[in-house]
């Protein structure tokens, strides 16, 4: 089986890409009380997390 960390890494990576894309393409899309580009920053965080998981899975392999 493929390393489970790699599977999760790909999932969060894709999720992060979607969010960063949405945040970059539609920065004016804001919820009523939000003061920042929530999609962009959350997306960056998920991309980072996905990257860390992928890096971990490569370390062992």
């Amino acid at each position: 089986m493929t390393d489970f960390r790699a599977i999760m890494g790909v999932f969060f990576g894709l999720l992060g890409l979607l969010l960063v894309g949405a945040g970059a393409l539609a920065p004016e899309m804001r919820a009523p009380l939000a003061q920042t580009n929530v999609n962009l920053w959350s997306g960056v965080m998920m991309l980072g997390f996905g990257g860390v998981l992928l890096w971990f899975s490569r370390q062992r392999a």
Partner: protein
Amino acid sequence: MTLTILDYGIIALYLFFVLGIGWTLRSKVASADQFLISDRSTPLWVTSLAFVAANLGAQEFIGMCASGAKYGIMTAHFYWAGAIPAMIFVGVFMMPFYYGSKARSVPEYLKLRFDEKTRGLNAVSFAVMTLFSSGVSMYALGLLFQLMLGWSFTASVILSATIVLVYTFLGGLKSAIFTEVLQFFLTVLGFAPLAFYAVQRVGGWEGIKKNVAPQMTHLWAYTGSPEQNGMGVEWFGLAAGLGFVLSFGYWCTDFLVVQRAMAAGSMNDARRTPVLAAIPKMLLPFVVILPGLAAVALMNSGSGYTLPMKGAGYDYDQALTTLMVQFYPNGMLGVGLTALMASFMGGMAGNVTAFNTVFTYDIYQSYIRKGAPDAHYLMVAKMTTVVGIALSIATAFLAQQYNNIMDLLQLVFGFVNAPLFATFLLGMFWRRTTGHGAFSGLLSGTLAAWFTHSLTLAEGKGGMFGVLHSFPSTMAQNFWIAIFAWSTCFLVTIGVSLATKAKADRELEGLVWGLTKMPSAEGAPWYARPGSLAVMVGSGCVLLNLIFW
């Protein structure tokens, strides 16, 4: 709230991955043991996160956020006085018996330690309870998606149940555990930004303190008497009822969580599983309770946000979802919804995988057909998975029709569970405890719970036989029911055990303190020793209690 294609895409991405996990694991389940208990080969970090996630259903997210809005940081008692000490205890002191006894389930441990009837009682009540919880989880999901998105109740229930069926049927416990880990990260990453933005918007912790009642920002300072705080509970009821009886009763004896630790690859890993799980558990209040508290502060600070009304008061259960709409644009909104959906489904899958194990090993193999070849039990386990999910769906629809039945069932399960920890504590640490003692202790503890409920009144609940005492809240009533049930079970078990014949010492090897060689981790580095980890985690928990005193 309206969703866009982006949100639907995110939901679809998650479902695709979950089904994919089931698919990749399908070849790993060739025997009943692999399917039901995952062959005791799951890595430590996976079992630890699954241990937290199995209990982290969507009801917990929604309920803890609601409670945070209603009672403030006092809600964290469920974690910092309740779950954490119990998780440390089960890992350090009880896991040697669960894991070391080679029992495949908690009821099976009771059979080895006591006798058939004690196992039967526990297995049957646990099996019914898991089906019920799984059904309620589905019901809550259907209701939420109907309310928020206008989706059909039936369609949401059937869709989520089918997905859970596919991945648990294909990959068994391992599949459920891996999905729980994915769900854990998704819920934390999905909701942590909400907590962060909401608290930031209201001006940080100082801003919260300025805008809410002082009781809501302290744990213990207002617990001198029940009248001082919103929960209506004093420090003793909190510490003994919630902290000791209810939390230890759940975390130390509920097979749903204990099963995750028992799937670990070695004794040391099994013991470290709950202790390591306590670290994320300890930090969860900042993700689940803080948004609720921030929601109230936001409302009081005149930001324009208000909690929706329900009758004469606020509908606290909607705190989390209304807050999401205030802070998340489409995209993150989809992530938040996917996280809720994932935790509903995780709750279902956790219950179903515990149900099929207890049914196959403790009911079918023990009372219906003994000594069949393994392939037969694997088939039974898979069939049980299907039947269990079908029964959960039925329960969900029943809950939709008759809300009162659900309340009644929940009450009865509370009565059955309250005394459990006394039985395990005596069983594991006093070799003189007998099967007759355990069985009669459990029954009388359940009766004591019922009597306490019937003789007291709180918010119109209870008082069937008259009212000897009135509690300011049902929460206080529940804590005291637990205290009475536990004490009755404890005393009756001791009394009956002394009057009946104990098992010979050699029959109890590996099952009781003093007759079991305790695993030693001496010489191992600190992070590999359950004891030193426990001290570290315990100190962190004490520190949190002091900071928010």
